[in-house]
């Protein structure tokens, strides 16, 4: 009886072990599936159902249960597969271009658009007529006009 009880307790402890190992996981499989690439199909894990992807998912699950952080899991994967296993490029060296080029592209596009709009709006503005110097009529015509107007006074 005692032996049976001990066996039940041991089995319960063995089953509860992995769950108790990490009460508060520090990352999730859903998050890492979007950060890690499947090495054979060149998509992120969440878009792949290949055997290699399933193997990596198993590894991630195991490490999450052991309370590893996302960064630690990623480092372990990089040590095994190389940097190409991560979906995002690093923030160092040549890889920096991948981060800055899209920003530079958007800023450049916005600048080109702004200059274009500014020039277009300037072209559309009606030019103010320059005030004529004097009345613009010769002396004789002006005299005749004065005479005509004088008749209406």
């Amino acid at each position, binding site marked *: 009886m005692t032996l049976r009880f001990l066996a039940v307790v041991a089995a319960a402890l063995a089953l509860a072990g992995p769950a108790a190992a990490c009460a508060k996981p520090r990352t999730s499989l859903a998050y890492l599936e979007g950060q890690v690439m499947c090495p054979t199909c060149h998509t992120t894990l969440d878009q792949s159902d290949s055997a290699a992807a399933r193997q990596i998912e198993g590894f991630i699950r195991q490490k999450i249960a052991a309370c590893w952080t996302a960064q630690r899991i990623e480092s372990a994967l990089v040590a095994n597969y*190389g940097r190409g296993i991560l979906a995002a490029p690093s923030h160092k060296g040549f890889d920096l271009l991948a981060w800055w080029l899209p920003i530079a592209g958007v800023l450049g596009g916005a600048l080109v658009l702004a200059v274009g709009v500014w020039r277009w709006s300037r072209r559309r503005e009606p030019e103010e007529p320059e005030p004529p110097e004097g009345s613009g009529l010769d002396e004789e015509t002006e005299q005749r006009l004065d005479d005509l107007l004088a008749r209406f006074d």
Partner: protein
Amino acid sequence: MTHRLKITAQLITLACVAGLLALLVWKLGHQQHPPRVGAVAPAFSLRRLDGPGKVSLASYRGRPVVLNFWASWCEPCKSEAKVLERDWTSYHARGVVFLGVDYHDLASDARRFVSAHELTFTMLDDGSGRVTGRYGISQVPETYVVSRQGRIVAHLAGPITDPSFAGKFRSALAKAAA
């Protein structure tokens, strides 16, 4: 001023297009294809999976080499493993070297696979797939037979247990070992 601006914008656009074209050409030029039979086998140096240190293909020059690319997650690799081990035991006395290259795999799982299948030939770790890429491997298992002169005698893009490859493998092995 406006004219200069227009020219500058056109030059920038041209430079961008030229850059993208250069990138496309570079990508096309760097696509990896399997080396042809008769060509020199691409050189490499890889970490041992089953111990410390590195192994290079060049160090086996003068001996025929069977290069088998595999992974622990690959189902056909399991049935192939037994056959490879059997062939290794019968051919190594004749100077044939068997190298297993583990590809895109977790090293711990790969070691478990080697131990479970009792494989005794040299195992190398290509987790990043750098060397495998040079051999144009798109699926595992794949096997190359390399002659004593370092030239490719046969390329089998599938398990050697497959009836269509088994005969080819044996004859390539015999030719390389002769």
